[in-house]
């Protein structure tokens, strides 16, 4: 056999082998994640978790997010769009996964804003100014205070409320649940308890559409 052909065949075989290994691995991983999520279904939502949308919606999106995460910021409008295009059918539960250093500070601020019923406004202002207070994955959360002007928060009160031990406990609980549910990157989505295995906006849309179709 000609040398070029030998090398081409060997190269092609190795690449095919690689591709097959990827497919097999991903399928097994998907099964494992799905099993793990159904075994730990009780950890998906905590009674203190911020919830949005219709209480009685039959489709629940659980999103583990980090306020300093660019992808979470990018997915936020998509999740809102999914909710507005399926009015009343989707409930959103937000869980904290402050993996970036310093993000927990911002989560505390969000919890303090929640006490003033300004959670969503603050979250959106936080995302909008993310590039300023969390440049290149190095959050400087203290800078965020200057950027929250438009939200109308009582900043003094928020600063006090942030320090409460309940808030800290919630963060620790959410992080523990994230670990148990094998959420290692943000955003981590579960739709009616099913994990978003292949990450992507199309895939999330698909998962939500499937659940809406089977629930309504």
């Amino acid at each position: 056999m000609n040398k070029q052909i030998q090398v081409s065949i060997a190269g092609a075989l190795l690449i095919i082998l690689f591709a097959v290994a990827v497919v097999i691995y991903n399928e097994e991983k998907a099964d494992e994640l799905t099993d793990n999520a159904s075994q730990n279904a009780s950890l998906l939502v905590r009674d203190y978790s911020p919830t949005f949308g219709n209480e009685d919606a039959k489709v629940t999106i659980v999103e583990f997010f980090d306020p300093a995460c660019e992808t979470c910021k990018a997915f936020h409008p998509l999740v809102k769009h999914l909710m507005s295009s399926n009015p009343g059918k989707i409930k959103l539960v937000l869980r904290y996964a402050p993996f970036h250093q310093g993000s927990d500070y911002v989560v505390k601020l969000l919890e303090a804003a929640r006490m003033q019923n300004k959670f969503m406004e603050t979250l959106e202002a936080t995302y909008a100014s993310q590039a300023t207070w969390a440049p290149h994955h190095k959050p400087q959360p203290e800078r965020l205070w200057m950027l929250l002007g438009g939200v109308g928060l009582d900043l003094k009160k928020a600063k006090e409320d942030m320090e409460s031990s309940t808030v800290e406990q919630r963060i620790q609980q959410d992080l523990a649940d994230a670990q148990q549910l094998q959420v290692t990157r943000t955003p981590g989505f579960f739709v009616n308890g099913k994990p978003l295995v292949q990450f992507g906006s199309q895939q999330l849309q698909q998962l939500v559409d499937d659940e809406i179709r089977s629930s309504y």
Partner: protein
Amino acid sequence: MNDVAVKQTPENTPSGWHLLFLAWILATVATLGSLFFSEIMGLKPCVLCWYQRIFMYPLVVILLLGMFPLDKGVIRYALPLAALGWLFAIYHYLLYSGYIPEGLQPCDKEASCAEINLELFGFITIPMLSILAYTAIIALLILFRKSTK
């Protein structure tokens, strides 16, 4: 037909060509394998893993170029890379097995070089695979050099 066969024979079995081919296959398997560990399985490569990758990945290109047309001088470029990679692999293995104390680790918080992430069949670790690949490549290159002398 016979003419063609006779003509092709010396070209088809150049001395040592298959040794290079085998070394190239090993380098490619090592490259794809390491990419599988990091990109598909999500194991973060530690600093030492990166140094070993730095010396392994170019071998895929250099050995391939040395095969077409067969270049006896390819060893001058390939062997130093393989030797340096081998040294890093040995160092990594010693660290992994605990022969070198933790304090000497050139590792960051994100991925520890001493943490054992994967054990196939209970004893095969990634640094061990790296040593095996580098050792086999070096052996093949030395055989190639002997066969072309």
